[in-house]
């Protein structure tokens, strides 16, 4: 490192139009990147903190399992769902988790198409989070169906009633959308993992490791002919996943918007849900990335600039969500439909006003703090904002679901929804499942896409001497 770039070495969040900031810091070469990332799953024994977190997560996951067992035995009456609020926490939790699961594929697909090279440090991690979030999401409709041994009725399979599913129902579109999304995300993730698993295989010291990582790396040799097809398909998968990401939350929004219920039936729902999903997904990535990078010493790979970029996206999508809120309110008035108008007035000033204002302050006001560079680039501050965003996004789904339902068309059917202890335990328990999977991932798999980070380093383009010049800039957008 020459002294000229020293200031950029320390602070790569500085925005200088004449030169691109460095993506990874600390004067890394290919081997040190391998060491840094592959070193994590190669640790003989892991830190006590990991065990502590894992034990806690597994306990919560166990509580989740016990609650589900009790639910199956006793029936959905143990929830707070009532008449008129027939859709309570389970659908709120479902939409919440699916939303979280949008960031990973967004990072791996859309940012890939936009040539945002900085995504390489965080995509693996975010994709893993995506898959685990989708797993958590799928649990909720799964346990919601009343007779959980008959889920195959949702699929176009011959069944004992000799009937087919109703393809005019948005809930069935959900089965296809979330199913496809889960499948393709998982494959996309695994596809990206293959070369990195081969790296760990080739460094493995014990026979079991060699076998385990060997099986899953499929005999990858890094052949140029293989890379050629691999990259071409990766690009096409990214192009396929981009509309797929949009479609998933659009279809989820159709669950609501195709109904004629005031507050649900509005045309902006599809893009609005997608923006909200990306918003919450990125907030979750930041919330997890900040402690993980500190814990595993990855500050040079997942730099402040990566975090700052994500915070900027959070700010942008937060504005989009705010735009949708205001548009809904404007049209509720402009449309001159009394029921629509009442619903929105009731959201802001009715019995659920508390939830509504939590939503607005967490989703619209708290991300405004990211206008300040200091907050954008200070890890503990951004984690606080991101946690608020996640709280707000859960409440957004709660507000949409419950406030539109609790004021039925007939005032005699008005009601109020209160969760039961089982609602709460299931929601908290789903975090246990999520973190169990996530901690296992952190322990056993490469948390950063090693090959992709290397491909973005200056040396990968044959630039050895001219570190920090336009060389990596060409492949970098900040």
């Amino acid at each position, binding site marked *: 490192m020459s002294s000229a770039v020293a200031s950029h070495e320390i602070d790569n969040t500085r925005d200088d139009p004449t030169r691109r900031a460095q993506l990874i810091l600390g004067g890394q070469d290919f081997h040190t990147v391998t060491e840094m990332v592959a070193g994590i799953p190669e640790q003989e024994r892991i830190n006590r903190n990991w065990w502590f977190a894992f034990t806690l997560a597994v306990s919560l996951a166990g509580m989740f399992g016990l609650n589900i067992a009790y639910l199956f035995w006793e029936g959905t009456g143990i929830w707070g769902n009532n008449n008129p609020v027939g859709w309570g926490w389970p659908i709120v939790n479902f939409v919440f988790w699916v939303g979280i699961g949008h960031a990973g594929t967004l990072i791996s697909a859309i940012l890939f198409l936009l040539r945002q090279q900085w995504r390489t440090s965080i995509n693996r991690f975010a994709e893993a989070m995506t898959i685990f979030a989708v797993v958590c999401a799928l649990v909720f409709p799964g346990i919601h169906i009343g007779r959980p041994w008959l889920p195959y009725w949702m699929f176009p399979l011959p069944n004992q009633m000799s009937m087919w599913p109703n393809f005019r129902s948005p809930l069935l579109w959900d089965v296809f959308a979330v199913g496809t999304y889960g499948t393709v995300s998982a494959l996309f993730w695994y596809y990206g993992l293959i070369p990195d698993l081969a790296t760990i295989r080739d460094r493995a010291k014990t026979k079991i490791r060699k076998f385990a990582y060997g099986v899953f790396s499929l005999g990858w040799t890094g052949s140029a002919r293989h890379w050629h097809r691999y990259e071409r398909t990766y690009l096409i998968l990214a192009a396929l996943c981009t509309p797929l990401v949009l479609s998933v939350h659009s279809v989820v929004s159709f669950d609501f*918007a195709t109904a004629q219920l005031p507050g649900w039936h*509005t*045309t902006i729902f599809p893009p609005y849900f997608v923006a909200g999903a990306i918003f919450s997904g990125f907030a979750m990535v930041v919330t997890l990335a900040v402690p993980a990078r500190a814990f595993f010493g990855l500050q040079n790979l997942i730099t402040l600039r990566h975090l700052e970029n994500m915070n900027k996206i959070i700010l942008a999508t937060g*504005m989009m969500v705010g735009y949708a809120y205001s548009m809904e309110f404007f049209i509720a008035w402009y449309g001159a439909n009394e029921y629509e108008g009442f619903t929105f007035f009731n959201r802001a000033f009715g019995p659920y006003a508390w939830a509504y204002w939590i939503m607005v302050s967490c989703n619209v006001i708290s991300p405004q703090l990211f*206008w300040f560079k200091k907050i954008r680039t200070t890890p503990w501050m951004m984690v606080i904002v991101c946690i608020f965003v996640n709280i707000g996004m859960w409440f957004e789904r709660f507000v949409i679901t419950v406030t539109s339902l609790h004021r039925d068309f007939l005032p005699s059917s008005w009601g109020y929804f209160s969760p039961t202890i089982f609602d709460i335990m299931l929601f908290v328990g789903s975090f246990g499942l999520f973190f169990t999977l996530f901690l296992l991932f952190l322990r056993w798999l490469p948390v950063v896409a090693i090959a992709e980070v290397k491909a973005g380093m200056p040396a990968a383009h044959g630039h050895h001497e001219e570190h920090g010049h336009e060389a990596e800039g060409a492949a970098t957008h900040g």
Partner: protein
Amino acid sequence: MSTASKTLDANDARLSPFEGGGKMIAVGFGLGAVGLGGAAALGAGAGDHFEGFLHSYLVAFAYFLAIALGGLFFVTLQHLTRAGWSVAVRRLAEVVAGTLPVLALLSLPIVIPTFLGNHALYHWADPAARQEDHLLHHKEAYLNNTFFLIRMVVFFGFWSLLARYFLKNSTKQDETGDPEITTKQQKLSAPAMILFALTLTYGAVDLLMSLVPHWFSTIIGVYYFAGAMMSAMATLIVLAKYLQGKGKLGDIVTVDHYHDLGKLMFAFTFFWAYIAFSQFMLIWYGNIPEDTIWYAPRQVGQWIPFSIALILVHFAIPFVGVMSRHAKRKTGILLFWAIWLLFAHWMDMFYVVKPTMIIEHGGEAGMLHLSLMDPLCWVGVLGFFIAAIGMGLKKHRLVPVKDPRLTESLAFENY
């Protein structure tokens, strides 16, 4: 990137202001005078109080306004994302956005009569109608003549100032080469983007949605935006090809830049379809009269083949056509699709505006109400649009020659 950086001479003749700009201005004014003059004469002769003329004019006006706003969004976005690849074509987008002051003038035939209470275009502009119609009465706080005028002045004023500001600073950098200017533009881009989103949305609400004042759709701003971005990308492709054909730009704008513009054009073709489908599907599924009044007349008579053609021309055919890498890297093919999509955008505006004549003004149901005034208005506004672009090209260098990220843009290669 592996290629050695090209170096640029700021006085390179290929980058100097476009000498043909004067001819563009002359031809543009000629077309504009003939087109709008002819259309106005036909409109006066139709004896319908300019109703037909104003609708044809609004189709053409909304069409070019979309392109200019798309250009403005593109410039703002490039600054916001600190993009490097696009520097070579950014000046063209700045010039396209620079037509906004001219479009502000061209909005007068719509804004002035509406302000004065002429309701040949907007039913709500009639104070009597606002008294009789319960829904219009409810909306009077927003849909009234004075507030409409105020909004139009604010929107066009903001767009014109923003476009001029970006262009002025960018051309200043051509002289000074000061990287601080880039920083300044970037700083402005974030708040500008927010105001742009709001003004574009309410502009679409006022100019297009309020044509059927009983109808409402929360997505209308995004819908107009999607078409705007697609047509702006198509315009940039056409413009760059035109200038290269005239011996300008040379190898500064490479096939990789076309490839990226093509990708964006393709993406927004798809995005338009996504937004249009979201709006249609939700209204079709809900099937509530207050929503379906907008679609119902579009599914009768001649509008049936037109609507189907819109899906095919605006989405299905170009989707397959522009999908492959090959189509985006052969600039001749890309030019064909750009022109195709510019036509599709006209169909879209026609589809949005024209059925108002049936819904609000008692026109015969099922008829397209296509008249000679439609092409004439289009040619007329096109003329002034070309003239405005000619003015920009004649005055400014065609590439921001001293932009600190220009070398990056020149070396840029797609994978």
